[in-house]
């Protein structure tokens, strides 16, 4: 009797295992339905003005996407030079590096903050400056975050002045503050000179940055990005998208393996 029960249990577990494995690809497919981009036509906020959450609050359950299904996966590039729409002011390292990393990130997402604060600096020091990795920052402001698009606009504007690093750092390090009060402008102004702040505000007000953010967002959709951060590794014609955060040690092991691949 006991043997029969054990056998039945093992068979059920095996069946469930197969079922779970079968579910994985299905699950992957359903993930391609990602939140739609926030309307880019919305008016940029007045510099210095704090957005009220009620005005810019995004829907809690994102609307289904219309274009993601139609978008096809970009061709697999052999090097970073083959990647589309790279803003050189938001990319670091050598274009000819053997590994390219595209990081789809949202300034208001806590996991993105963790990835940035724990991994980014060491990655830059050990792999990017030595020409082994080409690091590209991509904007993927999730509609569930009220201020992430505003923050992305400010970071883009700062990038145009060559000040992306201090601004990104300030935005991530003060995330808990500005996500409460919406004071992205004040956070950015704190690390820029008054002249630079004025230029950044003018760029944000100009409304020319949203199409660039939307381009990154659309690119993310082609990789089926549905959460942030998502890192897409490109190496020797292979593309590996990974969602979630990683510790520097895990990343280092993976990069070493990628670099030693023949």
């Amino acid at each position: 009797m006991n043997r029969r029960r054990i056998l039945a249990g093992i068979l059920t577990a095996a069946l469930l295992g197969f079922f779970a494995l079968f579910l994985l690809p299905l699950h992957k497919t359903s993930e391609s339905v990602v939140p739609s981009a926030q309307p880019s036509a919305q008016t940029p906020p007045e510099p210095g003005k704090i957005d009220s959450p009620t005005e810019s609050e995004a829907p809690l359950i994102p609307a289904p996407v219309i274009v993601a299904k139609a978008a096809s996966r970009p061709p697999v590039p052999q090097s970073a030079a083959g990647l589309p729409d790279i803003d050189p002011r938001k990319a670091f390292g050598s274009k000819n590096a053997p590994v390219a990393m595209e990081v789809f990130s949202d300034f208001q997402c806590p996991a993105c903050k963790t990835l940035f604060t724990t991994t980014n600096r060491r990655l830059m020091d050990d792999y990017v400056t030595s020409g082994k990795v080409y690091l590209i920052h991509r904007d993927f402001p999730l509609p569930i975050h009220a201020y992430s698009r505003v923050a992305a606009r400010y970071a883009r504007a700062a990038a145009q002045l060559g000040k992306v690093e201090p601004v990104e750092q300030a935005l991530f390090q003060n995330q808990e503050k500005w996500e409460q009060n919406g004071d992205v402008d004040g956070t950015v102004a704190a690390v820029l000179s008054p002249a630079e702040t004025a230029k950044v505000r003018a760029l944000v007000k100009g409304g020319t940055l949203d199409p660039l953010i939307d381009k990154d967002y659309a690119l993310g959709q082609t990789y089926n990005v549905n959460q942030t951060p998502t890192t897409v590794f490109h190496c020797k014609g292979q593309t590996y998208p990974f969602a979630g955060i990683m510790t520097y040690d895990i990343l280092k092991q993976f990069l070493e393996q990628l670099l030693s691949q023949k």
Partner: protein
Amino acid sequence: MIWIGRLVLGGIFVYAGFSKLLLPNAHLWPMFVLKFSISMNISSFAQQVESYKMISPEASQLVAHTLPFVEIVLGLLVLIGWRLRIWATAITVILVGFLAVVTRAYLLHMDINCGCFGTPEKLTGMTVVRDGAFTALALLMTIFAFMEARKPHPWSTPEKA
């Protein structure tokens, strides 16, 4: 009831454990990519555990590195039905814990992912209701398992004098 509980809860526990290890990143080959996938999935799960703000980052790492395996083992044991009373009780205790944690987060209006399965899933009232239903089922399964054990085994009924 015992069979339903075993199949449903055992299946869910096995799936929950596997999904935490293999989702959202499920690159199965080559081996170093699989290893990186699992490491990233565990890191992301640790982040979700930490977002409940109940335990330290180190404890979150410990939970993230052990809970998926515990879930798989418990799920399999319940599916097999060996020493059911013990494992059904263990599952019930774990589910009561999950329910308490999820309810606390919901009442505190925490804007977090529940971390129940591998993929991000916003913690809502439905999550609490679902966890409550699982806990009730586990409780019933445990009670029935104990009741079943008290009955004399059909093969061992005493012969009539």
